[in-house]
């Protein structure tokens, strides 16, 4: 059996044109998807059964007991941290927020270690963006800055930019220009019309130089800025000004390199500057398929996109203080709930040391590095494969991912809903008024 127009739950592209082949409720192949998509659909490294640590060993348990024990840990914690959320459905993220409010805990998503700085920049200067279809249909200049779509978002260029024919570009590959800005020559740089190689940490200076040149202040620019020659910068400015529609995409090479959010702020202001000459937009290359969704959900429920602390009874937000890495490295939290993400693989050593010391509960379909820290593991259905649910593409387009095969495992939402009800009971709150 084939299921068509399936939405890929891997990266922020959320390609919605996959065909999944199924035999006897097993996925046997994926057409149209990239290698990352196939690995997601065909992944077999699953958490199989609910497990709980007893006497230093993980032993099998029931879902009810795993949930009960999790509730006990979370309800008794003084400063619980609820982290992750980017790999699950919007419905589960909503439940997560309600649990956090009830616990007076801190809820954070993975953007605090990826595009958190972009959000800080947006909070200072805004965000002139657009949907990916605007780029596909109109953009004659694409700039990838500090990102490498060929490896990280393999279909980005064929669906939305360089190779995607659009309404105003019949032959995209010939009619579009592409600039890649990076500290090293990536696979993406190999296909660019212009590769701008910046010395590590030089993004801010290069963006500032471009802004100055667009404003007609070329004379003040030295012959070389962060390893980029003035003549190349002049060429880039000319390309930008000649474009009818320029689209910048940026990745962690911009958000997580020195100057962090100031780089992004500067890039947004570059777009603002260019918008006085032609049409320009800027879009962050979001990683997890629903990381943008976690920002959206947290925002409409709490007012803030990540790092939200409910210990004061109201939503308090201060990235750097209320974000997961900071809380863990300060050894501040005394219980950690990880949902649909893998801090065990990505967080600094100091954080992992603290994770080893405190109770960690993991809700995830997959076995990953965090599993080795978990005192309780709750295996769930994979959203977008075994259950449907809402997700937001990197440009803010909401989609409903599809269920392609059946599973007996509960969804994240179901597990969290049960936890919520039980925490209400544990806290002695009325169960019908929340």
């Amino acid at each position, binding site marked *: 059996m084939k299921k068509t127009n399936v939405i890929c739950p891997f990266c922020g592209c959320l390609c919605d044109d996959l065909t999944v082949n199924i035999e006897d409720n097993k996925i046997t192949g994926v057409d149209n998807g990239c290698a990352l998509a196939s690995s997601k659909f065909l992944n077999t490294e699953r958490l199989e059964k609910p497990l709980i640590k007893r006497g230093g060993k993980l032993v099998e348990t029931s879902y009810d007991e795993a949930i009960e024990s999790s509730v006990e840990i979370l309800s008794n914690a003084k400063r619980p941290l609820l982290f992750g959320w980017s790999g699950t459905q919007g419905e589960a993220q909503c439940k997560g927020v309600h649990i956090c409010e009830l616990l007076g805990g801190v809820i954070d998503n993975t953007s605090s270690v990826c595009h958190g700085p972009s959000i800080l920049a947006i909070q200072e200067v805004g965000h002139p963006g657009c949907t990916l279809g605007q780029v596909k249909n109109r953009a004659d200049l694409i700039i990838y800055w500090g990102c490498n779509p060929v490896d990280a978002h393999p279909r980005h260029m064929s669906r939305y930019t360089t190779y995607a024919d659009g309404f105003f570009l019949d032959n995209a590959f010939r009619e579009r220009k592409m600039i890649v800005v990076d500290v090293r020559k990536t696979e993406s740089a190999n296909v660019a019309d212009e590769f701008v190689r910046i010395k590590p940490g030089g993004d801010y200076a290069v963006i500032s130089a471009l802004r100055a040149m667009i404003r007609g202040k070329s004379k003040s620019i030295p012959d070389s800025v962060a390893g980029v020659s003035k003549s190349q910068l002049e060429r880039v400015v000319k390309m930008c000004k000649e474009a009818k529609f320029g689209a910048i995409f940026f990745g962690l090479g911009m958000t997580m390199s020195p100057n962090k959010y100031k780089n992004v702020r500067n890039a947004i202001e570059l777009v603002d500057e260019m918008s006085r000459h032609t049409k320009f937009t800027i879009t962050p290359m979001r990683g997890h398929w629903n990381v943008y969704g976690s920002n959206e959900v947290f925002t409409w429920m709490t007012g803030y996109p990540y790092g939200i602390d409910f210990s004061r009874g109201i939503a308090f937000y201060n990235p750097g203080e209320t974000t997961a890495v900071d809380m863990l490295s300060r050894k501040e939290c005394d219980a950690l709930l990880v949902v649909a993400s893998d801090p065990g693989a990505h967080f600094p050593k100091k954080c992992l040391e603290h994770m080893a010391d405190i109770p960690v509960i993991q809700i995830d379909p997959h076995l990953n590095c965090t599993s080795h820290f978990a005192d309780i593991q709750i295996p769930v259905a994979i959203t977008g494969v075994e259950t449907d649910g*809402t997700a937001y593409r990197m440009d803010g387009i909401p989609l409903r991912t599809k269920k392609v095969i059946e599973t007996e495992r509960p969804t994240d939402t179901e597990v969290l809903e049960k936890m919520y009800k039980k925490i209400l009971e544990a806290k002695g709150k009325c169960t019908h008024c929340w």
Partner: protein
Amino acid sequence: MHSLLVKNAYVIDPLNNIRGEIMDIAIKDGKIVESVKDSAEVIDAKGQLTLPGGVDSHSHICGTKVNFGRYMSPEDMRAGRGRAQPYMYPVSGYSVPTVYANTYRYSKMGYTTVLEGAMAPLEARHTHEEFSYNTLQDTLANTLFDGNWSVMEAVAEGDLKKVAAIVGWTLAAVKGFGVKITNPGGTEMWGWGKDIGCIHKKVDYFGVTPAEILDYLIRANEMLNLPHSAHLHTNNLGKPGNYKCTLETMQRAPDLNDKRQTLYMTHVQFHSYGGSKWADFCSKADDVSWMLNRKPNIAIDMGQVMFGKTTTMTADGPMEFNLYRLHHNKWSNHDVELETASGIIPVHYSRKNLVNSIMWAIGLELALMTKNPWQCMLATDNPNGAPFVKYPEVIALLMSQKYREEQLKTVNPDTEKRVFLPSLDRELDINEIAIMTRAAQAKALGIVDIGKGHLGVGADADVAVYPIKMDDIDPSKDYQKIIDGFSQTDYTIKRGRAVSKKGDCLVLGDNATIWVKPKISEKNDISKDPEFMKKFERYYTVSLDNYPVQEEYLHRNICIETETGI
């Protein structure tokens, strides 16, 4: 079966011609009935002002733009924070509050139905997701068609039936309610960083004018028998001298429906500007209301500006960029492929600022100079002119010349030379306020027949009891009592249940989404049209299969099916 009796209510119900009668309102199973048994729950209104639940026919409360307004404004969240209490989750925010804050605050003010003013079809799922948390008001979403490529192509072909087929299918697919047209043609031009100006310039490539887009969409709207009329945000918003464009647009509006207006023009304050630049900026509310008074086929909302901080948000992308260049604070923009654009910027309307003071006066002038209150809705285009929590102050300004005079003393002293407000002595009465805040809004939206905006037998039992004794006060002098009274109901009753009491919620709420499904024959089903399917596949980034909003997003839904004859 739940029964409720609201006793001793001082009722104003304009749609049923009730003006200040002391009466009992009987409610059973969520509807108004003739009488209920003695066993019914009783709320004693103690002779206080009792109105049908408030209806807001133009507000921005849920969806991509609104949420981006929150996302970019942590500073806004620090105002208006509230802790959890039974039936109320914690809230944050002032001009773009969290969803729960919006629904609690509207309920506190007696509002039970709110229309989200602008939903991009491609992003509709987001609006519906947020709607499900907006638990205390029934919600509806106007759907944007201003820069819709398929519509513009059908207009260029002169094919009205096709325009109707596209609009009809899209509304049903995205679970939308009405046709919203924001800066027609201008939002497509913004795709190239341009704007269009007034209604006779041609849209690049598509070769159609805003006037043509508007003409076709108005007629398609009627062809589909939609409950609401076309809902227009006119071209040239916020530009000095734009009143001419507004008048020309009004002049063109046909009269095609005997039950309601044919054209609803929104936030007309922003479109009633005289002068040629900011230096000679002045009010032209007199010309606009003169035209409105001669065009019963048009209804407007005020778009009242109130002083203080707020966040502007609209599908009018080019306008927001212009505004950003004036304010230099921050600017967000989010164009949507094949459909529309948008922009968001925070603003601070200052009493010291002459332009802002004139804007404040123009909104009030429009309401006071429009003879028929059924043609003018009270709204701030929340949060563009001001957050909706300012409605009680707007009501007081309309009811009291004394209050207006006092306020005029606090604004920029040059204002009086550029506006008409000081010369207007009209004071609206409570019946007119009830019309402008519920009855006319329900009528304009075409939802009276499904039980909104009135308290007649069979209506939805949405009722607001305000702590105002009309017989004991003179609104002209006691305007503070009007402000306080309208700020917080004693009881807000939604679908027969008291949902909030003195500002505290009594239930979690269970709202309904009202949407429209025009019945279109198989042969006119545009989603089966090979050309439309091909275009969809080639130019959208989402497949036709994944585009429609699934029923899962509509928890309690009221679908209005319309006969179309196509």
